[in-house]
């Protein structure tokens, strides 16, 4: 096959289009996933904030907390509640972060593949030019 620049340009356009469409689709999917995770985190925090007064009210009805009264049980319950919220929040944030890592990896992998394809195409082009040059020389030599 003789060297045809238009064929390589067509391949370059195809690679770029595929890269763009895939990247756009990934980005949209990542956006949707991120928004869902963020909503879940917000919803979780809201639930924790709603539960906190209930705990205080529950211990208050039993006389374990109130003006001038702070029982050890109430303090323990509040500390456990706080630790639970911190833990759940941390896990949710970690999940969101890891999802972000995966998104970054996916994007970088897609870009890496795209660049590799372009480089492979450039190398193939050079090899085709070399083969054509060899053939040209063979023709000129009359072999």
């Amino acid at each position, binding site marked *: 096959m003789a060297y045809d620049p238009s064929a390589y340009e067509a391949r370059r356009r195809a690679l770029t289009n595929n890269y763009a469409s895939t990247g756009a689709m990934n980005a949209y999917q990542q956006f949707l996933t991120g928004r869902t995770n963020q909503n879940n985190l917000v919803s979780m925090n809201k639930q924790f904030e709603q539960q906190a007064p209930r705990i205080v009210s529950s211990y208050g009805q039993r006389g374990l907390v109130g003006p001038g009264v702070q029982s050890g049980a109430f303090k323990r319950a509040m500390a456990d509640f706080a630790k639970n919220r911190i833990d759940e929040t*941390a896990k949710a*944030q970690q999940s969101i*972060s890891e999802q972000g890592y995966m998104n970054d990896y996916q994007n970088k992998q897609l870009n*890496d593949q795209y660049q590799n394809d372009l480089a492979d195409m450039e190398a193939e082009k050079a*090899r085709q030019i070399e083969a*054509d040059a060899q053939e040209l*020389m*063979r023709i*000129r*030599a009359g072999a």
Partner: protein
Amino acid sequence: MAINEANSTSAAQNKKVVSIAPGKKNLGVTTYAPITYSPANVPQNADRAERYNEISGTAEAGLAPTWIGGMTPQERAAYMYTARGTSPTGSGVGTTPVSNIETDPYAGNGFGGGGSGALSASDSLALKKWKQEQAIRQNSISQYQDMLNSGSYRGNQDAMLKILQDMQNRGVAGIGSAYDRSVGNINAGYDTALGLTNQGYNALNSYLKANPNNQYAGYTPQIAQVTNPMQNYLQAYGVQAPDVQAQIDASNQAAQQGAGAFSSFADLLSRASQQSDMSRLAEAQMAQNLASTTLGANKANYLGQADQTRQQALDAFYANMDQQKYAQEQSANDRYQQLLDSIIAAGGTIPGQTKPAPASPNTTLSPDVIAQLAARQRGF
């Protein structure tokens, strides 16, 4: 040679006038004007040569110049009567005595005989014929020798050889020209191919250097720090729990560990990408080097083929020309040998050579005497 043609011719000229007995003219004998004999004047036609010889021979013999072969029997008898001085019946006297006929020319030339009597007319004619034959033979020998000395016998062959040499010169020049064109095309093709190859690989190297593919380099994972969302709430109720802060620290540590793990993963991918990039650059450079080397090898191969083709063409051409030249030289040599054979057959001497002395194993002659004898024979 004992017979001097000049003297003989002179004698014939001195006897121009031949008297014939009065009253005998009615016999019908035709007389001719005297002819001075000369080998150069001998006609080439056989009949005319015979006629010429008889007329000149009878004149030189002191008889009436005549062509005996053209006489009737009666005319021949009357002519003989006049020549001998006798009548056909044995009586009568002729005007020309027999003694007027010159003495036997063969006597002093080694032809035997040795008699002193006068030659008959037929002997005289035979003598003239012999002299003519000798003149023709000598003339032929002389011409053969001239051809040998001058090399003119090679005329056609030398012309053909010159044509062949011109053909050879043109052919060799043509082969050389074709070879030069081939070498020029190979060199031009090599330069063009090398230029294209370098252009292609230089473009690839430029692209690779301008577009390093290391997507994971410098990647730093983001870490979501965990804070205490209940801090104000706990403070409001006077709850101080150290383990809450421990929980925060543990959660942050876990987040950092997770980010660190991914960062290590990214570093691994980055190094792999760098190696891949370096490998690709090295591959391009090696491919370029290999392409240049291959082009050089192909160029050497094509030049070798062109040289071999030229050599084969020259060998075949020279072989053909040599064969044709050999054929011409062989033809010239055959011609040369024919001339030698003709000279030898005619009794002549080959120019530049001496006739070998006859073999005489028991000879007592000294080498000097033999050399002198050989020198005499050279002038034969």
